[in-house]
């Protein structure tokens, strides 16, 4: 395994580290790892570094890098919207990894805030052969709400203290519902004219979950591997295996290149080393299964 740190991009203002496999054979695909929130390219608890090395042991090269304005990369010049800029950055990273390793296609690992940029880039660039969307999508269902309320009830019980907690939660819920209603009313009064020439769909501002589900399915049908992962964390967001599949409108859909996995025991930031290893193993296995283009895959993938 070898690593090298380089600058790249049209102005040479992006910075990242390429991890190569020990042998010099061109990898069948490369992997891009980038920022989760404001954390620099090493990732939460250094998981990008650890995943890069686990992938290198499998012969897969990767580039972990900082988007414009993050980590050690320079600030963007502001000529592009945020969404267009991150897509441009990811495409520049593909160029750099292709140039460094000869990798013909790429998997993008979107950790939290990196999920939607991975999706947008897959729609925009045919070199993307797989995307991982990790713990970025939260859509409640009656069952998920019941499960969350159930676990809170078990914790807080039924006494006066518990009723205080429930009362506060109820007031917060009512306030949130009021705010949501206000936003809906405001949105309806706005013009619904086109949003300019941006290639990025409306998800940049507001996620239409059905449209996103159809977009993910369209990618899978195009041959792009799609892996949607969720963390159990405190049960407040996703708390059962099929929650995201159902809320994205894909309940009846089974496609070998569209995988959903719920990592019940890990927290969002993969805080413990055990959680990190579970995340790394899951992503590594998923990438090895999905990222080679269908014609390159050693065996037909299976969905979970």
């Amino acid at each position, binding site marked *: 395994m070898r*690593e090298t*740190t380089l600058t790249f991009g049209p102005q040479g203002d992006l910075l990242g580290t390429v991890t190569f496999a020990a042998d010099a054979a061109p990898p069948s695909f490369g992997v891009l790892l980038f920022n989760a929130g404001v954390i620099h390219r090493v990732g939460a*608890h*250094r998981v990008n570094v650890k995943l890069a090395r686990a992938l290198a042991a499998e012969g897969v090269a990767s580039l972990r890098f900082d988007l414009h304005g993050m980590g*050690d990369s320079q600030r963007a010049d502001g000529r592009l919207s945020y969404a267009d800029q991150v897509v441009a950055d990811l495409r520049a990273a593909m160029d750099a990894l292709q140039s460094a390793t000869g990798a013909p296609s790429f998997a993008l690992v979107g950790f939290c805030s990196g999920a939607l940029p991975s999706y947008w880039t897959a729609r925009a660039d045919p070199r993307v052969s797989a995307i991982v969307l990790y713990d970025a999508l939260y859509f409640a269902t009656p069952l998920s709400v019941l499960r969350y309320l159930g676990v809170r009830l078990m914790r807080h019980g039924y006494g006066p203290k518990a009723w205080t907690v429930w009362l506060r939660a109820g007031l917060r819920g009512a306030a949130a519902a009021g705010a949501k209603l206000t936003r809906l009313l405001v949105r309806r009064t706005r013009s619904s004219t086109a949003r300019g020439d941006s290639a990025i769909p409306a998800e940049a501002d507001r996620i239409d979950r059905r449209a996103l589900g159809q977009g993910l399915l369209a990618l899978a049908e195009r041959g792009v591997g799609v892996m949607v992962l969720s963390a159990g964390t*405190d049960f407040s967001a996703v708390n059962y295996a099929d929650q995201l599949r159902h809320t994205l409108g894909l309940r009846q859909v089974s496609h070998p290149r569209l995988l959903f996995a719920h990592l019940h*025991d890990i927290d969002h930031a993969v*805080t413990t*080393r055990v959680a990190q290893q579970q995340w790394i193993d899951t992503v590594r296995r998923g990438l090895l299964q999905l990222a080679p283009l269908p014609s390159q895959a050693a065996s037909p993938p299976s969905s979970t």
Partner: protein
Amino acid sequence: MIPLRLFNGSRELVGIHLEPAENAPPQHHAVLLCNPFGQEGIRAHRLYRVMSERLAAAGHHVLRFDYYGSGDSPGSDEEWDVQGSIADAQTALAELLRRSRAPRWSAVGLRLGGTIALELARLAPSPAQLLMLIEPVLDGNAYLRSLAESSTQALDRAYGVRWPLSARLRDAMLPDAESEALGFYLSPQARAQIAAITPDCLATVPASTLRLLTPDSQAARQLLQHAAVAASPAVEFADSDARIDWATDSAAATSIVPMHWIRDLLDHLAVQAHA
């Protein structure tokens, strides 16, 4: 900004060298930034980036780098320890002085980076001008206890009501506090090296100025008096005037950059220039 790969023997390190800005008066004074440990190191990245840019804009050569087994550098978490990091800092300082040809150098260390900067100064071929230690670790055992506490709090916060309810979850996820701190491995030797840190670490440091920014400068002063440490040079204490929890896994505050620390550093480097 120049990305570097440095070699401390077989230990390869990633560094970023910033040359003085073109329009800045050259200071002939290089500054090395020493990272904290583990999660604190990740959270300090933004501060160090902005600090290095401001230093370069003021005419300084600056090098920030990751110790072997940390950050973007080669090596696994298991291979990180304090003594190795001090040796890595020696390599980084040598490279900074070679590239800058600066006759003077200073170092900054946040949290455990302060310990590394102090030991570096003791081993360096020439005395440091300014050692600025920000919220340094002066009691290793207390620091280890606070890391263990932060780890527990992080899991409690992350898993919420599930954590006290599920023995299975705790069995699966609760790390050994002896060997893990906020998701980073602590080897027995790293732990022992940290535990050995006492206020004595401030005694007799080859530097013109030793400046400490601490959350409670009065308490730090008393700690030194209580331990009967005769620091040389005399330590300059100042309140860090910030309430930042460096040891947390919450990403929300990771982009915090206390600019008054950077101004303080620039002001004191300027004093050194005129001394």
